């Protein structure tokens, strides 16, 4: 008798067979594939880079357009007034080679900063002067609500007076005496000179109404990517590159700016930014040797040696970042639990950061020990206040009135010891809202869930596409406050500017304090980092870090690298990769 399977019924099975066959084929291909080494087959004056297509060209960031590729793109065309390096060699972390101005001169008890511009020119030969800074100032002050970097009370609200002294010098007087390092690193980093002569020929931006009009024109042009490479507005640049070709959602070609006057002139003539539909597509092309700079997806880290054998250098890109598991202190049910330091400590002691970093993240993550990142590249966890110690965690729970039931349900036995708001018989059950799409994250929470289960703490893992969106900062009375724990750190939870202070993260009511952590002592220490009198702020920063490392406003988690970069070994100048996630293509050259 003949079998009569229909096409509809067979299709899924065929698809699965196809998937397995494809997988098998790919696995079998591990012995070959890449076609070139050390730039072979690539023009010696060009580098092809895997990068999503930027979609914002105006160097004043707009809400919804703050993705990393946009920052990299605009920096190549319109560098910020100050660039930074974190190696500790320069005052205020200012990178003198890339910056367009000298380090500020501070007077008036720290309240006035005088800044002198270097002798630079726009690509059309016009000198870069304080008119371009004034123009930027006029635009952002008149359009604060449309500027992604604006926060109420922050820059430019905290500037009492902006004064242009002459063509080369301007000064800013702040409303309070801020710590200079904090102000230079976290406030002045927003200033980007923009070409007044090219963008505002009639000087309309001198008035607020005119500034709004000019800004609207620039924003409209920036929202029209298909004209990026033809609109005259974007032809006048201050950076080492100019835009040669732009294909919306496709390749972007940057060409060397021959008239660039900065110290860091581009060495390559052309940089091609090539987008991919996903990690797999990118990695297939990388393996085939068709791009000069790409990245290894976290799941394929074991392919490092293969890529190296094909002439690539694999280099982890460490970020100036921390990763954490947010706790919702305002959750009416579990908030009282999180408010107990001993409980936070017990849970932290069940997170085996070094082993997770090694076994699950394949050494592409490093333990987070506190709010201030370790020096980029540090993988040492010996400095962490709380180490992996399940026995100590159990002892902590038992000594605070909990009946620990391994692989069961630990419950509060003595409410007086458990803490205020905790009732007899209350279990330790939490839901973790995590991210979909990251295999390593899924495995990491499988491990943490397993460790917690050994002490009777139940974690229910719920993966969603955007965990930040569904775990907002909330009040206990709000219906959106039912979340317990939130994780959004598969590529790092938080990337700092040069000065890693916590006023946006852990201060009471801070905009990114999603868990509503509040501790007066922490607030004082955070304030101290902003207003400390020591010029580099390091003493205040250390005090703040040491306190929060122990007070656990969040649970510290392994901090993954931004990405595992892979570039042709003949390509020089890629390393060290900027921890603040900029890419300086001008340093790149072929051996």
């Amino acid at each position: 008798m003949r079998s009569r399977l229909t096409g509809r019924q067979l299709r899924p099975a065929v698809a699965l067979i196809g998937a397995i066959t494809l997988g098998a084929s790919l696995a079998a291909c591990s012995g070959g594939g890449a076609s070139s080494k050390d730039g072979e087959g690539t023009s010696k004056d060009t580098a092809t880079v895997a990068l999503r297509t930027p979609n914002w060209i105006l160097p004043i960031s707009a809400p919804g357009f703050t993705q990393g590729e946009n920052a990299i793109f605009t920096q190549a065309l319109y560098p910020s007034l100050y660039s930074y390096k974190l190696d500790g060699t320069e005052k205020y972390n200012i990178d003198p080679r890339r910056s367009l101005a000298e380090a500020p001169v501070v007077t008036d008890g720290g309240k006035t900063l005088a800044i002198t511009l270097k002798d630079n020119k726009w690509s059309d030969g016009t000198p870069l002067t304080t008119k371009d800074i004034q123009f930027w100032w006029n635009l952002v002050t008149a359009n604060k609500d449309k500027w992604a970097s604006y926060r109420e009370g922050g820059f430019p609200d905290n500037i009492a007076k902006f004064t242009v002294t002459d063509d080369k010098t301007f000064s800013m007087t702040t409303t309070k005496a801020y710590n200079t390092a904090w102000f230079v690193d976290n406030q002045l980093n927003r200033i980007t000179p923009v070409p007044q002569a090219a963008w505002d020929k009639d000087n309309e931006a001198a008035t607020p109404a005119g500034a709004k009009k000019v800004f609207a024109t620039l924003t409209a042009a920036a929202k029209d990517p298909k004209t990026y490479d033809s609109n005259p507005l974007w032809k006048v640049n201050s950076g080492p590159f100019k835009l040669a070709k732009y294909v919306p959602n496709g390749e972007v070609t940057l060409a060397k700016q021959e008239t660039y006057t900065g110290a860091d002139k581009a060495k390559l003539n052309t940089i091609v930014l090539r987008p991919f539909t996903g990690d797999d597509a990118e990695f297939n092309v990388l393996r085939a040797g068709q791009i000069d700079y790409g990245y290894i997806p976290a799941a394929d880290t074991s392919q490092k040696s293969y890529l190296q054998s094909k002439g690539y250098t694999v280099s982890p890109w460490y970020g100036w970042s921390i990763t954490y598991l947010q706790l919702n202190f305002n959750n009416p049910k579990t908030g009282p639990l999180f408010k107990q330091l001993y409980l936070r400590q017990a849970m932290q002691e069940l997170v085996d950061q070094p082993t997770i970093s090694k076994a699950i993240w394949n050494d592409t993550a490093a333990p987070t020990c506190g709010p201030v990142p370790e020096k980029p590249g540090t993988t040492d966890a010996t400095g962490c206040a709380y180490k992996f110690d399940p026995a100590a965690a159990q002892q902590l729970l038992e000594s605070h009135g909990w009946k620990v039931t391994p692989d069961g349900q630990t419950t509060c036995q003595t409410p007086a010891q458990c803490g205020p708001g905790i009732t007899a018989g209350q279990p330790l059950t939490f839901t973790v809202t995590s991210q979909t799409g990251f295999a390593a994250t899924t495995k990491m929470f499988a491990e943490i869930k397993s460790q917690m289960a050994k002490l009777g703490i139940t974690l229910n893992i719920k993966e969603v596409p955007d965990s930040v969106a569904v775990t907002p900062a909330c009040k206990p009375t709000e219906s959106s406050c039912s979340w317990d724990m939130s994780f959004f750190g598969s590529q790092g939870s938080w990337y700092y500017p040069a000065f890693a202070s916590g006023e946006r993260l852990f201060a009471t009511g801070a905009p990114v304090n999603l868990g509503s952590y509040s501790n007066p002592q922490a607030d004082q220490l955070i304030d101290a980092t902003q207003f400390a009198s020591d010029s580099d702020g390091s003493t205040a920063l250390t005090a703040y870090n040491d306190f929060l490392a122990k007070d656990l406003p969040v649970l510290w988690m392994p901090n993954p690298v931004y990405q595992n970069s892979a570039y042709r070994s003949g390509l020089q100048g890629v390393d060290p990769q900027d921890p603040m996630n900029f890419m300086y293509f001008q340093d790149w050259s072929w051996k």
Partner: protein
Amino acid sequence: MTVSSQEKDPVRSLWRQGLGVFAENRLALVGVGIFVLLAGLCFLGPLFYHTDQVHTDLTKVHLAPGAGHPLGTDGVGYDQLGRLMLGGQTSIIVGLAAGILATAVGTIWGAIAGFAGGWVDSAMMRVVDAMMSIPALFLFMLLAAIVTPSVSMLIIIIGAFAWLGPARLVRGEALTLRSREYVQAMRAMGGTGGRAVRRHIVPNAIGTVIVNATFQVADAILYVAYLSFLGLGVPPPAANWGGMLSDGLEATYSGYWWLLYPPGIAIILIVLAFNFIGDGLRDAFEVRLRRR
């Protein structure tokens, strides 16, 4: 003149004849064999092969098949053979339950619509048409993102949308059956519509329903695999074959073949098994219907 056994007990004879036809279909028997083997492996295997599928062990990550771990270990140190058994339980339970749920709902819906006819039929089938116009996988993903996936939730989600096919199929059968003489006769004698559906429409469409049910089970198993593949399956330490296959594919370049092939082959085998069984059942019921 002797009375044949067939004439003595015609119903029993029809079932026997159907069984005989089913048994003649070798692929159908292979299907049954595969299903029994896989179900035995998943549900009885853990009684003899003990593994810890709750606690991770990061010291035993990605061990290749060998002594102690015949199919190696996965990315968090779970024994892969034990995981295959655990995952199979989820896949089979969800597949069977969702398939049965979809078949039951679809059969009742389709039988009522087809028998009632008129505006009732129009209204009920427009609901089916409307739901069918929405891509099922999209809906599954949306629902799975809203609710926390669990075995029971997966059954409800998949069953809630998989019933549309059986509903259409049974409605077509009901349209034919309602004009049959025995139905007309029952109605003429005062039988209610409910009785007609219960005693005549559904029992006489049972062949179609059962055949379709096997395909529903196969489809449901695949839907579980799809959802897990998209990261919307049951969370760890629970497992299912689709999720395991997804993990295995991510490790393709790493050479961890034991994470890829076992769940992939298991999914193919069980889906094929149900297809073979359904094919055999169709032949068997066709014989019975011919005979009638």
